[in-house]
């Protein structure tokens, strides 16, 4: 399989991951599309240097999240996010509305977090364990656990305020 075919397959399989990262760090549809393109470009650029010893998802998250940071216009504590474009996903019909509503509440709540916490919670929501989160973010696994505990508290308070 040539490089182009392998890369296309990889992006096709992980398109959702890139959309989620792009939507979490932008505040307009246009910015989201721009960031999506930039992430795919950075993945393409570093595809040759990807080391098979590390998990492909670890490499993808690292490139995607780092690209998102360098694309920020300013480094405010809060990065206003836009709700994810739910049409890009395939939600079971009967669950569409409630799932969309829950996702919107979640995105609104994530606005209170700083950049590091936002990255950690993204990986947590993606089902990554402490070790993987530590590997991607560069903080120790025990610190990941402590931070997730604090973030949960912050989000709980925020969600209580919102609802």
């Amino acid at each position, binding site marked *: 399989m040539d490089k182009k075919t392998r890369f296309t397959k990889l*992006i096709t399989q992980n398109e959702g991951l890139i959309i989620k990262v792009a939507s979490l760090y932008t505040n307009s549809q246009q910015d989201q599309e721009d960031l999506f393109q930039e992430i795919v*470009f950075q993945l393409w650029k570093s595809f040759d240097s990807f080391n098979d010893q590390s998990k492909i998802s670890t490499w993808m998250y690292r490139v995607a999240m780092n690209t998102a940071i*360098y694309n920020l216009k*300013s480094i405010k504590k809060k990065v206003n996010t836009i709700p994810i474009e739910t049409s890009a996903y395939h939600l079971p019909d009967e669950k569409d509305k409630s799932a969309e509503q*829950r996702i919107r509440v979640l995105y609104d709540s994530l606005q209170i977090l700083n950049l590091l916490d936002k990255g950690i919670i993204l990986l947590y929501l993606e089902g990554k364990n402490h070790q993987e989160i530590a590997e991607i973010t560069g903080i120790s696994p025990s610190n990941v656990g402590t931070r997730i505990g604090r973030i949960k508290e912050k989000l709980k308070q925020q969600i209580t305020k919102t609802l």
Partner: protein
Amino acid sequence: MELEEMKNAWSEMNNSSGTPSRLTTQLLDQMTQNNYRSKINRIGQFEYMGSIICYLAAAYLLANFAKIETMIMQVFAFIAIALLLVLPIVSIRSLCAVKNINISSNTYLDTIKDFGIRKIRFQRLQKLNVSLGFLLMLIILPVFASIRGKDISQIPYFWSLIFPLAIAFFLAFAGWTLRSYNRMLQQTENMLRSIEAE
């Protein structure tokens, strides 16, 4: 809603339909044919254009330096030429640093710190640029007038109205810009502190 419920909602979103979206298909075609231009590489287009304008202005001043008669105007011209040559170099050097980043090997935490430090450096530099740009605007007008053989003091209301109004306008503009940069600087420093502290 508890975080665990959120996690469930998040995972309910199926990550992939198995076929790429229209955007992805187009993008992959562009990229693999080397037709895509990175946004990061596009940074600085305006700065490059601005640099050309600065160098043209510096060349104009140099070419007409002999026409400037008074000593004070010659000193102003010399300062203006120096600023026109130095300011673009400073701006472009700071932008080039942003392009030489290693996105795939740095950890997320290192990236945030690096971005914050670069941002602080850039914002401080911009503050300096605004201040020096203000000085440049003040001194370049009489120099241009001198090159064209006009005595600036003979322009009606120049000292009584035009000059004070220009000063007031530029001071207000520079003050507003510097305040804005100070605010951004503060936000960046706070963010870095919040990460270091925990």
